[in-house]
Structure formats: structure tokens, C-alpha cells
């Protein structure tokens, strides 16, 4: 037995070896420390809130623009008879219009200035114009609309009805829509409205609950229903999509733990205070690298605002890791979970070699898309996606051999991910109505089996969607 007196003397003396480092050392260490603790989840929440807010603002502005345009709101069964008379000067109007109610009223009183603030109204009315004069023969409403039959005087209010119709109409024309703007939004009764123009008539409504009223006749209502039904039953739309961005792996979306943190103990677990046991080198963490997705998609309307989207994508994910030198000889991984698990080559622990972990997957997304309005170019999508790992060369740190190895037994084949994102239609009515958007994807299960490491994919990607059939 070797006498270790010499070693003991060396140990004792070296325990007392202390040297004062230069101040620059701490400055460099400090420079490498993060400014604040990373809160990735907060970042993603902020991104989501930002996207939501931006989309609402854009939608709101687009929607407001639409409502001010009578042209867009007016739909007439006979398109030849449709004309916009928005903002027409009342004084210049050559023809008068009256309602069956106002025919009894004293002419000469003037319509007060109408409130231009528009609000949707659900209801219907039948409007007929005879001999060039716009006479509202009857008006019926389904939902709290003032009608000619309404008798609740205290809820009456004068409104200005703008009919999008040619002034010189035929004997009897039915118009599918009109804008009704209350002259007195507060609901003040006005029984002395004047007949002002063929395209502007005054009617009374039951409740001035709206600033604007879209009046539709029964025919239009049926047509709208049919249109909606037709849209809902539209056949599959399909096309190709392409996405590119970054791919990273993480132990958990909500913390910065090492991907090996849950697998084997940290160096402290074998520490004895002064040495004497094995030193487990700290395995290097993979860092983010490129991700690419491309493939076919198919989508279908399932409701007025909802679409279902699926497809088949090839997905390439990668990340970078630093290892030691490569050794081209077989190694037994001494895995307690798998007998005779080996690797044909391995990389030593260290940081001398830059290595790219690559993952090739086949993916089927099952997403729901939400679009608040058909006119809105913005939409959101979310849902699960299922990917099958085709192959990977990813190196995984093996603690028992202190080396980085790869073996297909170490990977989970089925990766289930959650996807969320937002898209924006560009040139919707052109020949190439492409969409672009952002997508965040997080794999709910680890791509590496949990006994070896815990690596969840985190993707942040920009995508492009090109429809082939619409």
C-alpha cells in the first residue's frame, strides 16, 4: 500500500493557496451575466397581447372604414339598381321621399343633423319606392326596431334613413338595405320631420338604441343566409406553406434549467467538500439554431368565423452544442434502463468542437383558425400538431461515460406540440392571395426520452402560405 504522506502534505499546503484576481476578472464575469432573469413566458404573453391588440386595432380601423362606406354595405338583389347616395346633399335632392307615417305629418320641419356614429343593428324592413318617390310603405322589425306599428311614443326617435338606391326608381322597387341614422340618438320624439329627398327619408323607430341601422328586406335576408350557408359548406382549400425561424430546446418553457437537470445529479451530488470522488463535467447546453417547415395544407370553413386547418409538413429542427473531440470507437453507454446500449462513436466532454444537432420530422398540424370578420385580413390560429421523428443525429450527454453520444433508442418518435400564431392575408383578391404570419410552437413532450435528457422544442417562426385552390 502506497504511503500517501507526500500527497497529504501537498494537499494541506495547496488548500492554503490563495491568489487575488485582478478586478477585470469580475468585470468580465459581470458582463456575461444577464441583465435580469429571463422570463420567457412573460415574453410570449407580451407577444400574444401585442398581437391581439394590434389585430383589434387594425380590425377596428378597417371595420369603421367599411361602415362609412354605404357602397359596401348596400346589397341589392338587382345589382343594376344599386347606387350609392352617401353624403348626398339633402338640399340638392330632386325627389322627395316619405314614410307612411310621415305622410300625415306637417311638412316643413327639418331633419336635424344626423349622428354619423354607426352601430350595427339587427333587424329588417321592407322599403318600397313608387314613381320616383321613396315612400316607405311598411317597415317591420324583428329586434327592437321602431316600426310604423309601434305605439310606444316615449321610445320614439326620429331617424334619417339613407337608401342606397337610384332616385328615379321604377314603380315598385325593393331595396335590400339602407342606413338609418337617428337624428336624435337620445331618443327624443320628433314627429315633425320633413321629407327631404328621395334617397333620404325620415322614419320613426321604436328605440333609438342604435346610431345606425341596417335595414334588410326578407329577400335579402334569405339571400344572406344562403350565402352564409354556401360559405360554410365551401370545399377544402389547399395550398403550400413555408416557415423559417429559430429552434431551441429547453428543459421547460417556464424556467432555465439545464436539459439534463432532471436526469442526473449536479456536481454537488457527489461533492465531498475537498475532492476524492469523481468530478462530473457539466454538460454543455444546446443553443438555438435554424428551423424550417414546408409542406401542404388544407383548410375548410367550419363556422362563419372558424376554419379548420391541417396538412402534412416536413419539419427540420436544429440546435448547436459544444463538445470535446470525436472518438471513432464504439462505446457502451452503461445505461441502467437499456441493456447493451451502445454508440458507434462518441464525443468527449469539452468545448473544442462545435456540433449541430439535427432533427427531421414529419408533422401533421390540427389547427383552428379564428377570423373575426371575413373582411378582416387578420386571423389567429392555435391547436396541436403531431410530429413523427424520421431521424436525428443529436448528441446527448451520457453521464456514466462523460461523453456525448447518439443512439436512436434515446429519442421519442412521436412529438406532440402546441402551436399558436397569427396570420395576415395579403392581396386577398389578387391572383396570388398569400398570407404571412408568426407562429410559436412548443413541444409538449420531450424529444429525448426522459431517462437521458429533457428537451422540449421551442420554435419561433415566420411563415408564408400560398393557396393553390380557393
Amino acid at each position, binding site marked *: 500500500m502506497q504511503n500517501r504522506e507526500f500527497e497529504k502534505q501537498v494537499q494541506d499546503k495547496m488548500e492554503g493557496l*490563495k491568489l487575488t484576481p485582478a478586478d477585470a476578472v469580475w468585470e468580465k464575469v459581470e458582463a456575461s451575466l444577464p441583465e435580469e432573469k429571463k422570463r420567457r413566458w412573460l415574453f410570449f404573453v407580451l407577444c400574444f397581447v401585442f398581437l391581439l391588440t394590434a389585430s383589434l386595432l387594425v380590425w377596428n380601423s378597417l371595420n369603421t372604414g367599411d361602415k362609412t362606406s354605404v357602397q359596401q354595405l348596400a346589397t341589392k338583389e338587382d345589382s343594376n339598381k344599386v347606387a350609392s347616395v352617401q353624403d348626398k346633399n339633402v338640399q340638392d335632392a330632386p325627389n322627395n321621399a316619405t314614410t307612411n307615417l310621415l305622410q300625415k305629418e306637417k311638412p316643413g320641419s327639418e331633419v336635424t343633423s344626423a349622428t354619423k356614429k354607426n352601430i350595427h343593428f339587427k333587424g329588417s324592413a321592407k322599403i318600397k319606392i313608387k314613381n320616383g318617390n321613396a315612400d316607405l310603405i311598411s317597415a317591420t322589425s324583428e329586434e327592437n326596431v321602431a316600426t310604423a306599428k309601434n305605439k310606444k311614443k316615449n321610445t320614439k326617435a326620429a331617424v334619417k334613413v339613407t337608401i342606397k338606391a337610384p332616385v328615379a326608381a321604377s314603380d315598385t322597387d325593393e331595396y335590400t338595405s339602407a342606413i338609418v341614422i337617428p337624428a336624435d340618438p337620445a331618443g327624443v320624439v320628433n314627429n315633425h320631420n320633413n321629407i327631404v329627398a328621395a334617397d333620404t327619408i325620415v322614419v320613426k323607430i321604436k328605440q333609438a338604441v342604435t346610431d345606425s341601422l341596417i335595414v334588410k328586406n326578407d329577400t335579402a335576408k334569405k339571400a344572406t343566409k344562403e350565402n352564409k350557408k354556401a360559405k360554410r359548406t365551401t370545399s377544402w382549400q389547399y395550398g403550400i406553406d413555408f416557415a423559417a425561424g429559430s429552434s431551441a430546446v429547453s428543459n421547460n418553457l417556464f424556467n432555465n434549467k439545464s436539459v439534463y437537470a432532471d436526469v442526473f445529479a449536479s456536481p454537488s451530488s457527489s461533492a465531498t467538500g475537498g475532492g476524492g470522488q469523481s468530478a462530473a463535467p457539466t454538460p454543455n447546453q444546446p443553443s438555438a439554431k435554424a428551423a424550417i417547415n414546408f409542406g401542404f395544407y388544407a383548410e375548410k370553413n367550419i363556422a362563419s368565423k372558424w376554419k379548420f386547418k391541417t396538412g402534412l409538413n416536413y419539419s427540420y429542427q436544429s440546435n448547436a452544442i459544444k463538445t470535446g473531440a470525436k472518438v471513432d470507437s464504439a462505446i457502451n453507454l452503461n445505461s441502467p434502463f437499456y441493456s447493451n446500449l451502445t454508440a458507434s462513436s462518441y464525443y468527449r466532454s469539452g468545448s473544442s468542437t462545435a456540433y449541430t444537432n439535427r432533427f427531421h420530422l414529419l408533422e401533421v398540424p390540427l389547427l383552428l383558425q379564428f377570423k373575426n370578420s371575413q373582411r378582416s385580413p387578420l386571423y389567429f390560429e392555435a391547436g396541436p400538431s403531431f410530429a413523427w421523428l424520421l431521424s436525428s443525429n443529436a448528441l446527448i450527454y451520457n453521464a456514466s461515460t462523460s461523453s456525448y453520444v447518439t443512439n436512436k433508442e434515446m429519442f421519442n418518435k412521436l412529438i406532440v406540440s402546441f402551436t399558436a400564431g397569427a396570420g395576415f392575408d395579403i392581396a386577398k383578391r389578387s391572383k396570388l392571395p398569400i398570407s404571412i404570419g408568426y407562429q410559436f410552437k412548443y413541444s409538449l413532450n420531450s424529444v429525448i426520452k426522459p431517462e437521458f435528457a429533457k428537451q422540449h422544442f421551442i420554435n419561433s417562426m415566420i411563415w408564408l402560405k400560398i393557396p393553390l385552390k380557393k
Partner: protein
Amino acid sequence: MEQDLQLITACLKNDRASQKQLYQQYAEVMLGVCYRYTKSVVDAEDVLQEGFIRVFKNLHQYKFQGELGAWIRRIMVTTALNFLKRNARYQSDLAFDKIEMHPVTDENPEIQLNTKELASLIQQLPTGYQTIFNLHAVEGYSHVEIGALLGITDGTSRSQYARARALMITWVKKYYLDNKLQTYAKS
């Protein structure tokens, strides 16, 4: 231990003052560790810097199952070994050729050098010897463990250590004799 817990918790919250306190608490000792594995204070400081970056990056892995100092020390040793492997100045000297087994001398001379003198002697060993001498004699790793760390066989580690130890004993004796002669001459 309680103090360590508080300090680590604050460091994990990225409290800069606590991080500096942790650094200052261990920097001098750890620079001594790094110094033994390198050939100069400048290189030792490079290792120390890299080591502390890794300490702060992996602090969440510390599970309070041993002394914090020992945990940091292990990271410093690992960092030092990585530094030697990737640094061109050390790489050629770090080639561990397979050599014949060398019998370990049973001599255990008294070391009359002070700490810094002994550290300087260790530094003067060829890098391969220096590394294995540090790992075995100072840190207490077994030759099997050293083999796994450096990617060599335990036999190579034993042989290298035997040579390093013999060299160190020769130098210690010589220093002792020189010192004695100087003392004699002065008297």
C-alpha cells in the same frame, strides 16, 4: 449552509450584489486552483473567469448536497481541463502517450516549501504531469476517474502520475538541499 442558501437564492434572482459577494467569497481560493493547472496567473484568471460564468449559469443545479465551495471547485477543475484541451500552448504538452508503467516511489520527503513555492514547482511540471498530479495528489481523484475525465486509460494515468511524483520529490529534495546549503553558507 443557511447563509449559502440565502446567497444562492439571491444570485438566482440575478441580484448583482449577491453575485459579487459569491464571487468575492470564493475567487481567491479558486484562482489558486486554476493557477495549479495553468502556467501563468493570466491563464489562471482566464480559467477563473470562464469558471465563474459557468457557476452562475448552472447555479440552479446546485442541490445543497455538498459544500458550495466543493461544487464550485469541481466546475473550476473541469473548466481548467477544457481550457488546457483547447489552448494551443498546452495541447502538445498534454498528449498522453502510452508509456510503460512506472513504479511509484515510496519516498515521502518532508515538504519544506511554502504554499506558493510548492505551487510554482507544480506549475513547472510538464502539462500532462501537472494535470494528473493535481487531479490525483491534490484533488484526490482516482486514476479511473482521471482516465474518464481526460479520455485516457487508468494505466496511463498511473504511469504519468508516478513520473510526476518522482519529479516532484526530486525537486522538493533539491530545494531542501539548496535551502540547507544556503542556510549553512549564511551561517
